């Protein structure tokens, strides 16, 4: 047996190989235990909390689809199911609803990571507090969108660590709004005043302005008007002089004076981008509106016609276009343009393929002015001079005359709501104005040859909770009308 010795060495080599345990060794991803320890980690975690805003489930696509395709300004090309929104034929399985829900909560979970773990990181405390405040603003924004679309929803304020924490019950709309107010109030005192020195960051003005809007939805007119006034009197913001310049994609960097907070997109490779701009260019129009022109979103004729001809904002739409070879296409000669008005508000003629530059506005100074006009009028039982000044500032910028003086409360509020529709068109805002004022059923009158029938019902005020959430979460029930 002596000559077998070498064999035992061979066996030994084999066994030694297996002496280490069977732990999986990660190389290309991080585990939570390794992370949240430096200021860079804190910034990266915060970046992801912002990043969800740009996802296709939120401002990248689904959020504005859910609201704007339901409302009375814009309609989709009747393909791939988006028309279900316009004809109110969706149900809880509709993919855009699920995407919006999941990605909103993903954003909340990302923000919760920051709020839970960053306090223990040893770093510059000023920046640390700001990071946490930014995360609270973002959490509030995600919840504000959820509550506006669904009503009662689960309220998650801590990171989900394991499966046992996955089944959260609903909290009431009231509780959600209270938390939003708490988060924004806490953020507001920490965040810096002034236009963000780092473009894209949340500021004090954004927190106060969003708080004003939240109070408006709560019909807390006093606070809404107070917070809007704070933003107005801060002196930080002003309206961009020309509507055309405001929406000129090349001037985005100059427009932070009005764009208080927006989702940042870029056409450049490597940067986060959006393809919604490509929805607006009619087939064959590239590259006027975008290098990719899908002809997937158009304005109703009735909305286009509702503008005064003097209104500069009417120029953000057009009924014909001239293609690269000089051919003119209009509603008469192009069946693709029949009963369709082209929206050029978000055009990016320098787009690279479906990669577009246009930021998506979340809060504009014009919005704050209109919030102030409405809330101050409501709070005072009728419009004040300041209420008039606020709405007129917006009207004048669009080359419109001052609003008829001496309106009663209701007439004034109606005028503000109409102004909001014109000013904030296609900015994922109109549908929520209609639902908060309980006038959304009127969209059934807004039809055309593409959508002759829009059978909206009272249950469409809020969207159904996504089917997957209802199935997998035993602690949660579907919204009652659904």
């Amino acid at each position: 047996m002596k000559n077998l010795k070498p064999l035992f060495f061979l066996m030994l080599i084999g066994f030694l190989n297996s002496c280490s345990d069977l732990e999986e060794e990660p190389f290309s991803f991080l585990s939570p235990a390794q992370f949240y320890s430096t200021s860079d980690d804190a910034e990266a975690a915060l970046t992801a909390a912002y990043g969800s805003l740009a996802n296709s489930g939120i401002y990248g696509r689904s959020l504005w689809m859910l609201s704007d395709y339901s409302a009375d300004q814009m309609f989709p090309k009747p393909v791939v199911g988006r028309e279900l929104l316009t004809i109110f034929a969706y149900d809880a399985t509709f993919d855009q609803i699920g995407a919006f829900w999941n990605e909103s909560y993903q954003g909340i979970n990302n923000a919760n990571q920051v709020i839970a773990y960053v306090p223990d990181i040893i770093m510059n405390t000023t920046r640390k507090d700001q990071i946490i405040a930014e995360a609270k603003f973002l959490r509030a924004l995600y919840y504000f969108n959820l509550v506006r679309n669904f009503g009662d929803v689960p309220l998650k304020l801590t990171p989900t660590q394991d499966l046992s924490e996955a089944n959260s019950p609903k909290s009431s709309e009231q509780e959600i709004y209270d938390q939003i107010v708490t988060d924004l109030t806490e953020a507001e005192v920490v965040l810096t005043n002034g236009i963000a020195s780092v473009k894209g960051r949340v500021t004090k003005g954004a927190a106060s302005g969003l708080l004003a809007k939240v109070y408006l939805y709560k019909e807390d007119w006093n606070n809404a008007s107070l917070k809007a006034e704070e933003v107005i009197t801060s002196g930080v913001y002003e309206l961009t002089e020309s509507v055309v310049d405001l929406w000129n994609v090349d001037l985005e960097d100059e427009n932070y004076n009005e764009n208080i907070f927006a989702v940042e997109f870029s056409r450049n490779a490597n940067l986060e981008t959006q393809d919604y701009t490509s929805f607006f260019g009619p087939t064959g129009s590239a590259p006027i509106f975008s290098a990719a022109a899908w002809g997937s979103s158009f304005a109703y004729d009735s909305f286009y016609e509702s503008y005064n001809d003097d209104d500069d904002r009417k120029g953000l739409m057009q009924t014909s276009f001239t293609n690269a070879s000089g051919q003119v296409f209009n509603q008469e000669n192009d069946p693709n343009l029949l009963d369709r008005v082209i929206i050029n508000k978000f055009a990016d003629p320098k787009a690279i393929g479906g990669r577009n530059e246009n930021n998506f506005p979340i809060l504009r100074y014009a919005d704050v002015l209109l919030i102030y006009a409405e809330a101050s009028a409501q709070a005072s039982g009728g419009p004040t001079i300041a209420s008039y000044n606020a709405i007129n500032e917006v009207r004048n910028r669009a080359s419109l005359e001052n609003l008829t003086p001496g309106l009663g409360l209701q007439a004034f509020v109606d005028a503000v709501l109409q102004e909001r529709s014109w000013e904030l068109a296609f900015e994922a805002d109109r549908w929520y104005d209609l639902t908060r004022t309980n006038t959304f059923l009127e969209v059934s009158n807004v039809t055309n040859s593409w959508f002759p029938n829009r059978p909206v019902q009272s249950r469409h005020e809020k969207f159904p909770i996504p089917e997957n959430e209802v199935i997998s979460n035993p602690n949660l029930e579907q919204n009652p009308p659904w």
Partner: protein
Amino acid sequence: MRKTLMILLFGFWITSTINAQNKQITGKVQDDSGPLPGVSIVVKGTTTGTTTDFDGNYEISVTGSNSVLVVSYIGYKTTEVQVGNRTNIDFLLQVDVDQLDEVVVVGYGSVKKSDLTGSVSSVSSKELTQTPISSLDQGLQGRAAGVQITQNSGAPGGATSIVIRGGNSLSTSNEPLYVVDGLPIAAGGSAQGSTGLLNGAGGSFNPLATLNPNDVESIEILKDASATSIYGARGANGVVLITTKKGREGRISINYNSYSGLQEVTKTLGLLKSSDYLELSNQVNPGQFDGLNIVETDWQDEIFRTAPIQNHQLSFSGGNDKSLYSFSVDYFDQEGIVINSDFERISTRLNLESKLSEVFKLGTNINYNYSVNNGTISGTTGETDQEGVVSSALSAPPILPAYDENGNTTFFGDFNPVLDLRSNPVALANVLNSNTSTRFLGNAYIEAKIFEGFTYRASFGVDMFHDRRDSYIGQSVPLGRNNSGIAGIGNVNQNSTIHESILNYQKNFGEAHNLSLTGVFSTQNFVGQSSLASGSQLTTDLLLNNELSLAAAQVIDSNKESWRLDSWTARANYILLDKYLFTFTGRADGSTRFGENNKWGFFPSAAFAWKIKNENFLLNNNTVSDLKLRLSYGITGNANIPLYRSLSRLSSGINYNFDNSVNIGVSPNAIANPDIKWERTAQLDIGLDIGLWNERVSITTDYYKKNTSDLLTSTIIPGSSGFSTVFGNFGEISNTGFELGISANVLNKGLSWRINGNFSINRNEVITIDGETDEVIPTGDGGVGAFANASILRVGEPVGSFFGYINDGIWQTTDDIANSHMPNAVPGDVRYLDFNGDGAFTAADRTIIGDPNPDFIFGINNTFNFKGVDFSFFFQGVQGNDLFFQRRMKLEDATSPSNQLDVVVNRWRPGNESDRYVRATGSGRLLQSSNFIEDGSFIRLKNITLGYSFNPDFSEWISSLRIYSSLNNIWTITNYSGFDPELNTTGVNNVTNFGVDRDPYPRAKSYLIGLQVSF
């Protein structure tokens, strides 16, 4: 052949006397019907050997009267004769009816076929390489019962999906474990392409294609638990054991095998001609192409070609009593029938075994391959700007020319901006998309005979795989033009090392008891690294992807991963009275892939076989020459769990732009599941082996029932947690089936005629999905015009069932429409059935509209031999499966500017109220409906070969010479309207879109001539 080897070795030991006198022996070898050419005659224990000539005559020199001649010929019993004083010895060979004594390779050893307790199919190299194949998985098609092989596309080097006894898995691989000369292949996979190159798996390249099929001696497919549980956590999908050719004792044998031929597309589709195209276009968008110079281009003609294929192999083998060697070098070159697609491979193999002493034996198997695959771009999403080469040839406007006056490909957008996103198919075919792979597969072993019957074998193996993908999408296609060129270099490096220690013990206890024991320890390590460097916005097309720093926008990506598998295995075979056979196997596998709560799995099996033939009542029965009953039950696993799935993971990817530059965000992307483990398959197998009339007919049948639980699937969890799914062991499916294999020597006098056939049935059912839902409705519709997924998972239904609306004709009048369930319809639109009868047309009206699982599959091979002439033909078929021709949704939606099938001239219009083809519309999107489900049954004449073996008398140095000609895929009976019914566009393991035709690469038929010479 192994048998011959063993006899030769044995012969060496018993031959002790060597006589020094040389003498010449001559004689003739024949069987009942006449002389046998090419019979091997070897002087036992020496390297001296010869073969008989065309008339069966031989001449050999021996050293003395004690010399023993060993005469062997495939299909005949090997005969030995001591020379004695004779100088003329004739042999009458007996047909070897006792094929049961063939040795079959099983996991970690081999057994006599007659002693098998498990279900194992063997495929010989002769069958495997009957048709020209780029990859050995293709050669298995139709050869073994219970094995369904689908060539995903007709592209050279294209991937194949192999499913043994029905799919066990929903989310992980259904591919069997491949073991080459004892080395489990772990590596393989295509490198990433740059942005815009869809890695449509159906068109992707096949890692098995790096092995040279001509090197293979035999393939054994292990199917039941008795056979596969020795591979434990990797055995559930079945195991394919590949044994390569080894040297044999005797003088050097030099073989040259070669074939070459031509391939052509089997079928083209009928499309609208220019005039009909224009008529449709003017109906949709009047005047759209006014002013254009209209031509008539047949785009299929432009991209298809007659393509050559060739293979050359040179091999040397031989050996003596101490050492055996085999060396081969092979060159394979297949041009694709689509322009600019091809596959080229150079491979070498060296197998050596050397006896160091009576105790030690050393050996090595080394294989090195180099291959280059120029692939066509395949488009699987259905979006206009992402069509593949073939689908763009179907949709391209026939009115436009392929080339401009300078001979460059035209750009469609230059003719009309509406065509901006459409590729000129010829330009798209010329996009650079090439994979260059090398694989080194090496195994070294030492074997020691510790004492009689007890051996130890230590082996060390390595599988090194590298693939580089080069891509460049230039300005000639829209994607490249919009991005000013997209260039990429992707790399994959995978290394797997394995050590195995195998103990074998075999002993007979008296006449009645035979025991053999096997114990194995093995550990396998895998490290995989991949990277991609790509860029767009290049200043010039000229340098392709060779100077990436020209790219203004650059994207880089890298990934590294590893796993380890440690295993302890034991097997006991016990044979009682040569009648009752018992096999017990157990394997414990510990894997890094498993969650921390389930690091080790145990996989036992037990089998019993009863050789009824050896019972007294059958011993003397002349009709029944073999009868064996087999029973087995056992547990196996599927550990192809994607790596790191049990861990909670943070990843980058949710980034954000601050100050117009990207900031990297890090966030949770998966919730931990420490319970993740293997998928568990419990399989029962009952088999019967029957031999009749002296094994002229042999039949193998098996019934099996497999139940796979702990299926790895993603299950939905509440999205309010911040995660929408968790990956874990939730589902359960079952497969039940029946297999029949028959081989018969119909004639064996003079003219011999042999039939081999197999037939398999498998039924598959989803038992549970994730415990939460009863069905998973296919998702998709992500982009404009993108194809949705086609298959639903529903409890009680087969995996992969197609889901959609039921087509109920065409709306004819507005009166029909008013008050119907589709009030917004227009006459000429598709009428879908209100399936749930609620009066409204909604997503709830979708139902199961087809089943891609066949009722049965079969293969039949007929071989005839007469004198030197051989003739064979091979049919393969699939019956009763449905296919979903998704691409057709785009080819008959009567819209413009996509070209349409020629039948669209019959579209609905006032005065021609078709009930089949919709009216012309601008946006004509058709829904996934029963209209696109077609019967996928086919019978294919895969191969006809006619060969002639010459009498090698004319030359001193040629020992055999055969020429042949073969025709492949020349005849297919099918009702399928697409290119070919054998397809799987969306990928190798995709159970959610199996049998979906999105971007077909048509199959080639081929005409070959070949030459086989031995020296």
